[in-house]
């Protein structure tokens, strides 16, 4: 009976399967269309960056002539290399500080017992609710009083460690089985050694996600750099500040502005492509806990 059915089914493609293929084709087409729509603005930006200023008015046509003059101008005349250098510097320093401090703090809140721990943790979470603009003026005045206004130190200080990162590391440490610490204790390791040699390495996936997310956060930050060192001394500008100023002043130099935008996006894109897996898992697990 079965053999007959199978033999009969082979050459004949049932209508359901054909519908399935068609459905799949439509599905993939839809996905590609959506992806294309998502990419179009960036492709257009790249395309426009290779145009001359007069040609940039022709928004729907390809560059004619193709020129790298906008790239050349931005790179050599418009301080963008300085901006990129500044952004990289800040991102690097802040990421390193956050890994260390959020790791330490996160571990403490996850695994060490000390009086008032839970209350303090709630306070830490509470800081998430204070909007930047509310603490704007007090921090501004504080930085002035300490003589740090206009210097990178001010921005680094307020970003040494963020509540989100600490929370994130704590959540991750909570998921690590206690066996590791107990083994370390057996070996006679003190608290710091346990943290540094055992726990932190175990938290590598969380750390990777933190690196990427904090890099993105610092690189993309506009508000605090604007307030703390974005008022005139362009030697200190980050790329986002540089781009904003460029937009405000030279909005008619379209190709150059496009170059600036690309430069403002590319580094994060590179990091994203290289570490996609951690990126995604980082965003998700940092948020799912609420």
């Amino acid at each position, binding site marked *: 009976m079965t053999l007959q059915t199978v033999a009969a089914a082979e050459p004949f493609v049932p209508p359901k399967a054909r519908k399935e293929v068609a459905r799949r084709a439509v599905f993939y087409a839809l996905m590609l269309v959506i992806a294309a729509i998502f990419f179009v603005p960036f492709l257009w930006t790249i395309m426009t960056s290779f145009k001359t200023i007069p040609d940039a008015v022709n928004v729907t046509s390809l560059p004619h002539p193709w020129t790298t003059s906008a790239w050349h101008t931005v790179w050599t005349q418009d301080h963008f290399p300085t901006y990129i*250098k500044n952004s990289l*510097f800040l991102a*690097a320093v802040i990421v390193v500080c956050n890994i260390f401090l959020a790791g330490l703090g996160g571990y403490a809140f996850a695994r060490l017992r000390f009086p008032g721990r839970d209350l303090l943790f709630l306070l830490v979470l509470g800081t998430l609710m204070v909007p930047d603009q509310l603490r704007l*003026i007090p921090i*501004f005045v504080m*930085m002035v009083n300490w003589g740090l*206004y206009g210097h990178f130190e001010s921005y680094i200080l307020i970003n040494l460690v963020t509540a989100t990162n600490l929370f994130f590391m704590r959540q991750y440490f909570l998921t690590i089985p206690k066996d590791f610490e107990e083994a370390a204790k057996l070996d006679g390791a003190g608290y710091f050694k346990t943290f540094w040699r055992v726990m932190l390495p175990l938290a590598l996936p969380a750390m990777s996600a933190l690196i990427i997310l904090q890099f993105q956060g610092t690189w993309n930050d506009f508000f605090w750099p604007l307030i703390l060192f974005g008022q005139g001394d362009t*030697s200190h500008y980050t790329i986002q500040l540089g781009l904003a100023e460029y937009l*405000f*002043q030279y909005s008619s130099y379209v190709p150059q502005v496009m170059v600036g935008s690309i430069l403002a996006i590319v580094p994060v894109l590179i990091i994203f492509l290289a570490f996609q897996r951690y990126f995604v898992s980082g965003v998700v697990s940092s948020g799912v806990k609420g």
Partner: protein
Amino acid sequence: MTKRLAMVLGLVALAVALVAASAQAGHKTHKVTEVTVAGWSSGGDEDNLLQQVINVFNKTHPSVHATLQIINTNYGDAMTARFAAHNPPDVFYVDSYVAGAWEKQKVLQPLNGYIKKSHYNTKKFYPKLLGAFMHGKTIYGFPKDWSPLATETNNGLFAKAGIRKAPKTWAQLKSDAKTLQQHGVAHPICLSPDWARMLAFIYQNGGSIKNVQSKASAQAVNFYVGLLKSGLAATSSQLGDGWCGQALGDGHSAIIFEGNWLLPYMKSTYPNVKYGVSPMVKGKVRGNLAFTVSYSMSTFTKNKQAAWTLLSWLEGKKGERLWMSKGLALSPRSDVKTIGGRAPFLASAPYSHGWGFGNPNFNAAYTVMSNDITAVIKGDKTVQQMLADVAAALKGQ
């Protein structure tokens, strides 16, 4: 994965080290008195000229070294931040429409003492302009230049429409615009939704900023807004341009009202477009606005004497002569000549009214003005409502 991560961290550390090293290398030390001077700039030409002027000062004043900072993003906000930080530049631009507010906030240094001590001759400054930076008898800054508005027309479009001369009156403005429309220019006039342009028309109808709710003022506003509503005029964003200067250059509009700053812009951005500059149109009377900026000193300056040396030189004959050399603006001193070709602007001096002169609430009121005029053009607010809002804001309410 550990290896990759370690590599990334290593690269990060390397980047940090490299950057820190290069940052250190960039530091210099000076033995002379350092003074910072700040202003904004409309483009490369102005940047260069400013730097040139500062360089000449530095060469001729070995004991004072001035460093120039150009602040282009929201100059006003930036300066506020720096005042609040007690850390502004020593010498800086002050736009006349915020001068009153900054004086009130006590961030500008009164200069009378320095003027007396160095026997500085203030009589050569045009009194109306100097008055913008005075409160009673106290002088807070000197005008470094000024500009009124004028009527600029696109020669090509005018020739096509067969109009020979630029419009001189409101009536001519309307009829010329209609003719231009018939010859293919959709919106011949470019008007900014900005009191910094419309106020000139208010003065031309006999109104004034001090009596903003008068019938004359309301009439003028209706005229201005009416041009926009009828299609004879359009705003620069409606024309797809950044400002009316751009609209003139790319031929989207044939008649605009801008100040002397248009000239360097056209030279650099639209060098091949032929355009004409004529005196500002006339309503019932002649009326125009005077925009001016001063050099002032801050009350926080640590080197007040050195700052005064810089300020007085910049404002003196030598400094102003240099600044006037490229024709970026008009001379504020009777003993320094403006570059040639600026007659239409200079002619309005007698009837130009200061923009924001003397009112400490002008800065805040300007926000109300800007937002309300957009509403009126849209039809969301009546002219009377806007004038009431503006009058209240000017009083500080």
